[in-house]
């Protein structure tokens, strides 16, 4: 019995402390070092911040290069799938264009009315022109859904700026380096956005599900929503401009699920905007 325990202790000690000729560090030393790093990361230690920024710059570029072949394979598959669906899609698009042309007339009228009302209320929302940025890496990890963009602090990017694709909200900047930045996607479990659901003007919070759709949370107990109700940013909290379309309610996926207008797995170029709301 004692011999078995001794064998176990010897095996464990050997695993953690013994290093062969070619090994520079023992396992135990590296484990202690990594625990110190985690501890310092948790405390937001300044040195770790600089270390991370330094490594980020180099790693993002290399990672984009390494991911290039896989990205190309994905693009090719999507190209062929689009090609075979072209006719059917063309017919659907013709119907959609007709509808949109009708809606456009209403839209112009409502936009002007909205501007006039905001002037009366005294709210002045200034929106930057937007910076077009290329998506360097769009790999979603098991724990974090995010994208790396090729614009950083030297281009005026700041934490909190919104990320749009074709005027649809897709995420928000959470980390800025000198030439690159990271945006958390609206599908991430940690993403929570104040939204308004139209028609009905229901105020709520849209949370990411970790998959390719969002979920409406923290809303009134009974929501009478159509299956095609549209979800817009509400502008509450001042992080987002009000009225940015995000997606539509689709109960077929899950109860109160939001199907995003943008395909978050196929982002190539995005627009980064800053929003300043100045009210009385």
């Amino acid at each position: 019995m004692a011999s078995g325990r001794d064998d176990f202790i010897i095996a464990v000690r050997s695993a953690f402390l013994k290093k062969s000729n070619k090994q520079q560090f023992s396992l135990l030393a590296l484990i202690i070092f990594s625990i110190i790093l985690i501890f310092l990361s948790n405390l937001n230690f300044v040195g770790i911040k600089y270390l991370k920024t330094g490594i980020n710059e180099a790693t993002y570029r290399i990672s984009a290069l390494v991911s290039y072949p896989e990205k190309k394979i994905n693009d090719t598959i999507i190209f062929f799938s689009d090609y075979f669906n072209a006719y059917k899609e063309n017919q659907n698009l013709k119907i959609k264009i007709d509808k949109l042309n009708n809606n456009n007339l209403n839209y112009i009228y409502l936009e002007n009315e909205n501007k006039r009302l905001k002037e009366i209320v005294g709210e002045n929302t200034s929106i930057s022109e937007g910076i077009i940025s290329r998506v360097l890496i769009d790999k979603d990890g098991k724990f974090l859904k995010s994208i790396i963009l090729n614009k950083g602090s030297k281009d005026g990017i700041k934490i909190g700026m919104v990320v749009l694709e074709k005027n649809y909200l897709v995420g928000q900047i959470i980390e800025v380096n000198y030439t690159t930045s990271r945006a958390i996607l609206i599908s991430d479990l940690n993403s929570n956005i104040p939204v308004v659901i139209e028609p009905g003007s229901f105020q709520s919070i849209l949370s990411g599900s970790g998959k390719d759709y969002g979920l409406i949370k923290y809303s009134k107990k009974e929501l009478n929503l159509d299956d095609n109700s549209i979800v817009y940013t509400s502008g509450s909290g001042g992080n987002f401009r009000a009225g940015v379309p995000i997606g539509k309610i689709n109960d077929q996926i899950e109860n109160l699920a939001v199907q995003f207008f943008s395909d978050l797995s196929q982002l190539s170029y995005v627009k980064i905007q800053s929003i300043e709301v100045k009210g009385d």
Partner: protein
Amino acid sequence: MVQKKINLKNKVLKYFPLILLYFSVLNEFDFDVANIGLLSFNLPFIIIFYWSLKDPDQIGNGLIFFSGILNDVTLGYPIGVSSFIYLTIIAFASYLRNITLRPNIYKDSLVFLVAILFANSVNSLILSFVFSIEINYFEIIANITFTFLLYFLFARIFNYLKPIGL
């Protein structure tokens, strides 16, 4: 000329596990081509476990530690988390190496399953309790399952490559 070619081939083969590890870490290889759904696996875990078990001198502990740092940066995790997880995988492999007299793929894979379950549990604990990051547990379980199943395939490939030049 022929000698030079052979040298280059030998060098590539010699550093193959290291190149594959860094490629998978920087690419975060999760086999999500054509939206196969939950089919994702953790290639770094397989590489680290296999080579730490069969030939620990092939990839140094320091290089594995550094690959963890790069993984954290690529995925946006707090620095040090992946390094710690990778080192726990090495610890399991080293322990198994020390107590094994006759290597057996089934015994190896069983310890590998325990190692990845432990590593992913620790990873989830650190991320959710220390850094308050929400986690999709179902996705992680699927990832663990596929990583375990694919260990057999990759172990066979690495076994085949070993006598060639590794």
